[in-house]
């Protein structure tokens, strides 16, 4: 479990503190800060929305690639794994459309390609090494976790309310995907593939199935991708 030290207690930002100050000098300063921030906020979120859309396209690509593998490799011979692969793929297609709608609204460009930077660094090398369901679940968990971290990181930089709303409502879903995939991985690791089922035989599940999906108290963001990285 992540220690408390992972996220330090934060003082509220300097800008926020300045905004609460009184007096003429502070009011003048506050006026300048507010005006500058308002100008920046007109486009803040566009880059984040575009990169998020490209990352969602990449997730759709990953799920499509996995679903195209022999069932013995993808794990799709399991009804539960087959179900989540298809359901999560549809979620990501919907997410891509949402982020593209936001990018459109903010004057950006719709993203129809995958995020090439992350594909090159993370996905393509792993796709070529998949040998069985455990590998597949490991790759998908990793990619979902990275994209969740990216949406969380972007929620701290996107100024536009529409971009922010999309990021905040989608990031938890990626985290849920990762948790369930990790739970299935734990069952495979325990040598109990027959327990990967929907609904499961709850009485037979090992304790690890109840906690493997959330090893950390706070979602780490160290693996978050960089806004604008999809531009080549």
């Amino acid at each position, binding site marked *: *479990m992540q220690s*408390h030290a992972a*996220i330090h*207690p*934060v*003082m*509220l930002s300097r800008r*926020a*503190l300045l905004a*609460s100050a009184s007096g003429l000098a502070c009011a003048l300063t506050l006026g300048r800060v507010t005006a500058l921030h308002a100008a920046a906020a007109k486009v803040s979120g566009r880059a984040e929305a575009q990169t998020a859309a490209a990352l969602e396209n990449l997730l759709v690509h990953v799920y499509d690639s996995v679903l195209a593998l022999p069932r013995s490799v993808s794990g799709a011979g399991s*009804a539960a794994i*087959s*179900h989540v692969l*298809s359901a*999560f793929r*549809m*979620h990501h*297609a*919907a*997410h891509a*459309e*949402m982020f593209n*709608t936001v990018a459109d609204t903010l004057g950006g460009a719709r993203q129809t390609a995958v995020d090439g930077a992350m594909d090159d660094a993370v996905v393509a090398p792993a796709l070529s090494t998949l040998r069985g369901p455990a590998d597949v679940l490991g790759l998908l968990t990793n990619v979902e976790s990275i994209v969740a971290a990216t*949406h*969380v*990181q972007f*929620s*701290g*930089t996107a100024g536009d*309310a*529409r971009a922010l*709303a*999309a990021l*905040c*409502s*989608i990031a*938890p*879903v*990626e*985290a849920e995907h990762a*948790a369930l995939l990790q*739970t299935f991985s734990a069952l495979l690791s325990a040598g109990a593939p027959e327990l990967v089922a*929907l*609904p499961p035989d*709850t*009485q037979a*599940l*090992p*304790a690890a*199935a*109840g*906690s493997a*999906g*959330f090893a*950390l*108290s*706070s*979602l*780490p*963001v160290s693996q978050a991708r960089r806004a604008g990285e999809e531009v080549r």
Partner: protein
Amino acid sequence: MSVSPHTCGDAPTRRGFLQGAGAAVLGAGLVACTTPPKAAPTANPVATDLRLAALAARLELALVDAYTTIVAAAEPGGRLAPAPAAFLALARTAAAQHADHAALWNATLAANHVSEENSGEAALVAQTHQQLGTAQSVADVAAAALRLEQTSVQTYVAMAIRFADHHARRRAMQIGPVEAQHAAVLGFLLGAEPVPDAVVGSGAALHLPAVRG
């Protein structure tokens, strides 16, 4: 302990498929519906953020209280024992993580010279005690925990877009998805669709306007 309000089959259900197909439209609507109201010109953003942080701390303390009650009822010798090992592991881990979350929010309050929160959000605690007190099975308490986690996730989503401070917002978004993970695994254990929707809404969120500055 399975209860199956949305039991899964071999393939995505028709309902699930429709949810997926409609998610883009839903998503577009969500972006519009969850756009945070503009703060009144006289609102103090620091005061508002601190009220949100205090609410988050009370929310987490309510979850700690609920899981403490659940573990007592489900562990060996408890009123509803025996419970599946996976459920007990979830409840114990979730209790510890919610305690971590409460400590993080209280640390933020303390760093800003505001009194720490010591008890859970009263309405939520009362509602949870009523549900847990009448529970007749481990599945009942698991379902109550799932509702609580869903309330928490949706509260974080609604709250995050209202934080003026970017660090506080990011913290909310590092915590909210962990609540979502608890909910997904609870859904799995209950035999429900573990990740039923493409987006998290805010319809079940705690009422936030009262925290406006």
